């Protein structure tokens, strides 16, 4: 297979396969969790689990009173790399082009310089998070291989994308193949690693809010 053929494969069937694995895997993961079920609560409720569940889903997205430096760092660096990643993914003109060629849908792109900034910020926040994972004894103790693996999987598409745009390192076609594959690996990994938190976070928050809300407490 030549470089160009490989490129055609990874941006065509390769991407479709990884998307399918992502969607099916994530659906399985969510259904598997849901069907574990939970016991019916026989105590008289004092509040609405649904309403409190929805509120917790929303309110946990922000700072909370009494937060420490660790908390501020987590939330700020977390938002920075998640947003950096998402904006770069969704608003880079070539990504939009690819999406358009598939679905016919498109939207305005952000200028390349802005995209460079979002990608660099995303990478910087990820580096800060990694350094902190080693430096903070609490985080270091909690971390396992998946924390590091997921870090690598997340940073790779950003780094290879930047190299590609600024034509550094490998020949363009090879680098493009590497870039797309790095994204495909990330997609496939989401349902099978702790990266699935990007979806299950809403389930976890809802349960937390619902459990406390049943007793009339907004958690």
């Amino acid at each position: 297979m030549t470089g160009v053929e490989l490129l055609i494969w990874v941006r065509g069937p390769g991407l479709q396969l990884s998307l399918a694995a992502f969607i099916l895997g994530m659906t399985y993961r969510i259904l598997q969790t849901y069907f574990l079920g939970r016991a019916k609560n026989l105590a008289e409720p004092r509040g609405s689990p649904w309403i409190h569940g929805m509120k917790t889903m929303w309110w946990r997205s922000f700072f909370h009173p009494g937060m420490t430096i660790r908390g501020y760092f987590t939330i700020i660096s977390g938002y920075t790399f998640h947003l950096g990643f998402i904006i770069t993914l969704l608003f880079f003109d070539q990504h939009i082009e690819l999406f358009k060629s598939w679905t016919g849908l498109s939207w305005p792109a952000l200028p390349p310089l802005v995209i460079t900034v979002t990608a660099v910020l995303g990478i910087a926040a990820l580096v800060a998070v990694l350094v902190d994972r080693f430096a903070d004894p609490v985080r270091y103790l909690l971390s396992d291989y998946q924390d590091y693996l997921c870090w690598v999987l997340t940073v790779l598409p950003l780094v290879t994308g930047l190299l590609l745009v600024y034509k550094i390192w490998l020949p363009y076609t090879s680098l493009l193949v590497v870039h797309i594959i790095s994204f495909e690996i990330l997609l496939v990994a989401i349902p099978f690693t702790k990266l699935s938190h990007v979806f299950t976070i809403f389930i976890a928050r809802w349960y937390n809010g619902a459990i406390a809300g049943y007793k009339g407490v907004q958690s």
Partner: protein
Amino acid sequence: MTVSVERGIQTLKEHIDAPVASFFTTCVHCGMCADACLFYTETKDPKYTPIYKLKPLRRLWHQEYTFWGKLAAKLGLSKPVTAAELKAWEELVYDSCTMCGRCSMTCPVGNDIVYMIRKMREGMVAAGFAPSGLKAATERAITIGSPMGVKFPALKNQIKHIEADTGLQIPVDVEGAEYMALLSSMEIMNFPEYIGAIAKIFHNADISWTIASDAFEATNSGIQIGSSDLAAELVERVVAAAERLRVAFVISPECGHAYTALRWEGPNLIGRPYPFEVIHILELLDRLRAQNRLPVTGKIKEKLTFHDPCQIVRRGGVVDEPRRLLDMVAADFAEMEDHGIMNWCCGGGGGVSANERAAKLKLTAFNRKRHQLEALGVNTLVTACANCRITLEEGLEFNNMDVAVLGLAETLAEHLEEQSTSATTETP
């Protein structure tokens, strides 16, 4: 592996439900829960990070419900949860957790960590790993009827004193009374003033109430140790007495975990809803206040604050009632910086105070409350849980702090404006 350890691991597996799976799946190992836990903040020891206390349960979940975990288990590559590991976790699950639930309020991804600690304890006790102090308390609760070994004659004796002091009759085993009051052994032995206080208030409000001679104990060591079977047996005793006396309400006393046990866990433990309503004493007093059946006179002038018992407030949902009640009798009621549903635990809840091995750690954890009190600069602290009260008193004494600890019900009773013509007898 011994039979009990196998049983423990099986129990842990059975306790993995949808919330647990979603919590473990979602944890990003950020460590923010550490800052919510007084055992971490006062020691700075990373092992006291709340989610870390669940590591064996997390491993079981990983092996049973994740792709890589299952694959590794099939290939014989995963590290099984061992007796030694559970033994090592005993201190983390019992000594360094009061089940206060503060961690569950702060996790950015929404993990309800204390929900899982409660489940983790089920497996620990089934495996035979629970602190001896808590085991002994549970055994006394089952065999004698009280974790402190208090039998009815001891209560009767206290009742006699209270009757002599107050001139009021304390009703025992009155069939058809509207309310059945429960007590904690700690109240009976250390703070019998509570019984006198509710007697005065109920008499004034013309409430028909009773104590059951065969089920006066409200606390539930079964829940603290994590044994649903034993916890259910203790709840059944209360239910049987309430049914025998045909009461409409069962009053949970000034005790935090008793309220969780009776109000929130009880019906689930016995597998059926109650034929009566469980009401916390503070809820009842607040209802009386709203109906003008709790007239008080005079106010405490000096600045005071309220220590929220975790199981009544954050984990129980009785948040505003103590504040409304305290406002009636306090001229200068000031809140600590973190209060209400974000309060800091006294350090003795969740069975920690019954676990002698944890005594030193408990006093270290108390430093959190000490800092809060020092920052506010108060000499009077009101609370509504006998266990918090004894823990607070111990901590204050250890630190040579001149702070008086008062029970809320007693404080109200002291300010009661006695009515010659009793209020209405309608159901509150």
